[in-house]
């Protein structure tokens, strides 16, 4: 019942994730942070099986950090995404697979562009302009097909994100009251104002 979404614009990416941790019909926690920073310009949003999310994300984050320590330069977003995909694919056909869906957003300082990678729990990976995981994806992808433009400003991008979340709040039967939002650009990862469903005009 979780939802994470990401939109990639020309020079930045916006990632949003809901903040609910629920088991069956009970909401356990209202302020969960589903984001895991991997490096200065690389952020991962994860959803899926509860323990797997943290374990897998920390494993990837530590390995990305290890590469930097060993080699003195960082893994590019594309390399990190491919590394993550490899880890997920290897675990798929092993004794116990990691059941995580993730979005990885990064700004490549060498190529000077923003990249957003979608990866599902089977380790299929695609670089996309916008994507979402969870039931929320059924509602936002159509919205984004209609209103997305790659050259939007940060303010307009944030409005687009609000429109998507308004759509989820209006039409999805599970209550996701808050979405935390992060912006990734050449200067790093920045927290944005969380989006509260009850403040949106629906």
């Amino acid at each position, binding site marked *: 019942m979780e939802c994470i979404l990401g939109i990639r614009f020309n020079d930045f990416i916006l990632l949003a994730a809901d903040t609910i941790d629920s088991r069956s019909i009970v909401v356990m926690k209202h302020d969960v942070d589903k984001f895991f920073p991997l490096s200065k310009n690389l952020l991962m949003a994860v959803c899926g099986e509860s323990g797997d999310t943290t374990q897998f994300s920390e494993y990837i984050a530590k390995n990305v950090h290890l590469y930097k320590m060993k080699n003195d330069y960082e893994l590019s977003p594309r390399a990190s995404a491919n590394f993550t995909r490899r880890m997920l694919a290897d675990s798929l056909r092993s004794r116990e697979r990691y059941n995580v869906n993730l979005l990885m957003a990064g700004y490549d300082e060498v190529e000077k562009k923003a990249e957003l990678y979608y990866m599902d729990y*089977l380790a*299929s990976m*695609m670089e996309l302009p916008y994507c979402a995981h969870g039931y929320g994806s059924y509602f936002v992808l159509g919205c984004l097909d209609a209103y997305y433009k790659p050259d939007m400003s940060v303010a307009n991008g944030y409005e687009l994100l609000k429109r998507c979340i308004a759509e989820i709040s209006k039409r999805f039967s599970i209550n996701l009251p808050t979405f935390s939002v992060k912006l990734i650009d050449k200067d790093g990862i920045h927290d944005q104002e969380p989006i509260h469903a009850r403040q949106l005009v629906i």
Partner: protein
Amino acid sequence: MSYNGGGVVAMKGKECVAIASDLRFGIQLQTIGLDFDKIFQAGPKLYVGFPGLATDTQTVHQRLKFRTNLYELRENRKVSPKVYASMVGNLLYEHRFGPYFVEPVVAGLDANNQPYICAFDLIGCANAPDDFVVAGTCEEQMYGMCESLWKPDLGPEELFEVISQALVNACDRDAISGWGARVYVIEKDKVTVRNVRTRMD
């Protein structure tokens, strides 16, 4: 095999081959991406397509690239289509009791610029006929289209028309294939890549 959907077709022509795939990346009935080409280059005149489960498309391509890289380092030459096809079959049969859910299609020109095409099932049974091979969720539709349109000794331009029509019309009749197509025509001196429009639904 029908979790992600997709289709690949390859045809022989006169001193040329063509291989084409659709571009949809979807999860069951939801379309996620529109640029998921299932065809990869394995040599200067050798291409391979992996329709089937998307994660295995990517994994098998990467594992095969590893093996061909080692081959090329050891043998100091590029891999030929027949040998490459044999490597594909070998990789798949190694996982006989836990297979990769892809049905590869190999298309290329050998050293004498003779066309070679080959298709495999998910456990590596090779099939290298003289006319065309198809694989994917719209297999049956593609068989029908290819059987009606293909003739022996088609030139590169005609081969492009025939393979495009075959793929496009087959994908249009399959809900989980389509959203655009990419066609590679491999001739002795060049490879032409073209994007073809299908029904975008």
